[in-house]
């Protein structure tokens, strides 16, 4: 009555044998959508194939996927041929893929494209309506999960750039049930405040399903409606979501979002210092320029000023005065010379001087005697010599026969 119990291994092997011996399952073709695609460094591909209601784990070994003409990706709808077997260690049955073909676009991707086109047509992505980010936000509202790398990266990068940053975190569900409502509520909440200058909506990398909330129309419209600029940082650099298109700026990563939102303290300080220097050199230049102009005018004014004219006239007068004085002096000197010459001449002709040389003259009753004819015998005459008179009487007159000597 009591059966021998299976070990887990024997049970698993038993199940595996049954599955592998099934005619249908050993050669099966399945359609579905790829998700959670992982291209392992070993060269094997691991992913999940799914439709609305079910999932199956899939593996495509290197030997098979080498022949694929495309790189499978999340959201891709494909037709796969292969067989079902069990991976004993995990007790997991899976589809071992031998070949894969694309089956149109995956439904999620299709929905994404449809919504993208619709919103684009409505103008939600228009560049002109993108809001300018503030240079120095007073407070940054962040909508993301309160746990994990995203909020940590945002806080770290923000604080590094500007140590006085203010961040308000709205803890949101970023995937699965209720995620879109949570993100929309965050956007609405921040818009109800008046101290938030910029909003970052962020989520780390994940599959297209995990990022799906950011492809929802409600989220897109809430971002569009926001009066506060929104930076979207969803997934990795290669992931694009509708939120990225509708937001004012798309950041490639949460760290990048923080870099965009928060200015570098040093950059701004430098900028202000730079402008200050410009102001100072401008005012100095202007004052120097004005001083030059003033100096120029001063020169002109001085040259035309009454004072200058007076000085110039004074100088002219001085020069004339000098000339006059010179002139007069010359005249005086000249006349002095003439007088001296005349005095010398007169002096030389002084009769007294002649008398000194031994000459004398005769005078009779006040008359100077120049000829013997003026005299008669017995005339009393005066002989004047240099040092006195001699009273004489004419005794004889001897006239030269041949006149004056």
């Amino acid at each position, binding site marked *: 009555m009591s059966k021998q119990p299976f070990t887990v291994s024997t049970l698993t092997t038993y199940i595996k044998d049954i599955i592998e011996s099934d005619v249908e399952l050993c050669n099966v073709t399945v359609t579905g959508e790829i998700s959670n695609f992982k291209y392992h460094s070993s060269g094997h591909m691991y992913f999940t194939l799914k439709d609305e209601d079910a999932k199956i784990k899939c593996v495509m070994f290197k030997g098979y996927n080498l022949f694929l003409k495309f790189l499978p990706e999340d959201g891709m709808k494909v037709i796969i041929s292969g067989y079902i077997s069990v991976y004993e260690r995990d007790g997991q049955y899976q589809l071992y893929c031998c070949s894969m073909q694309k089956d149109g676009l995956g439904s999620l991707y299709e929905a994404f494209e449809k919504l993208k086109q619709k919103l684009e047509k409505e103008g939600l992505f228009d560049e002109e309506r993108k809001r300018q980010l503030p240079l120095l936000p007073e407070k940054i509202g962040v909508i993301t999960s309160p746990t994990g790398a995203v909020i940590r990266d945002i806080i770290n990068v923000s604080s590094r750039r500007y140590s006085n940053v203010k961040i308000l975190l709205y803890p949101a569900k970023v995937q699965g049930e209720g995620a879109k409502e949570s993100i929309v509520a965050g956007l609405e909440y921040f818009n109800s405040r008046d101290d938030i200058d910029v909003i970052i909506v962020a989520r780390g990398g994940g599959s297209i399903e995990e990022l799906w909330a950011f492809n929802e129309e409600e989220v897109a419209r809430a971002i569009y409606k926001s009066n506060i600029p929104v930076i979207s940082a969803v997934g990795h650099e290669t992931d694009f979501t509708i939120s990225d298109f509708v937001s004012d700026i798309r950041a490639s990563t949460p760290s990048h979002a923080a870099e965009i939102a928060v200015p570098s303290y040093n950059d701004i300080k430098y900028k202000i210092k730079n402008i200050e220097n410009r102001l100072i050199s*401008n005012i100095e230049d202007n004052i120097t320029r004005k001083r030059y102009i003033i100096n120029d005018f001063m020169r002109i004014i001085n040259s035309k000023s009454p004072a200058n004219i007076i000085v110039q006239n004074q100088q002219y007068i001085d020069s004339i005065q000098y000339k006059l004085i010179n002139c007069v002096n010359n005249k005086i000197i000249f006349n002095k010379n003439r007088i001296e010459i005349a005095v010398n001449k007169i002096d030389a002709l002084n009769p007294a001087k002649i008398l000194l040389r031994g000459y004398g003259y005769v005078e009779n009753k006040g008359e100077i005697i120049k000829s013997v004819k003026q005299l008669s015998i017995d005339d009393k005459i005066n002989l004047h010599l240099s040092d006195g008179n001699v009273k004489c009487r004419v005794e004889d007159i001897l006239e030269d026969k041949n006149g004056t000597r």
Partner: protein
Amino acid sequence: MEQGRENIKFEDALKRLEEIADYMESDNLSLEESLKMFEEGMRLADFCNKKLDSAQKKISIILKDKDSNIVEEDFTLEEE
């Protein structure tokens, strides 16, 4: 610009500061104008520096208390 200086945004102040610097670089500015601009510029630069340095770092999280009221609490990163 003159009144309510305390209320002007950092960004507007910085923008005005840049405008003033550009404006002052144009040659045909009277000295009075130039001095007025200079004075305003230096005041704005001072304002910007103060604004930049006086802010207090604060990182907080929005939570709901037991009565569903929204409250703001300090947020600290969990250690890895």
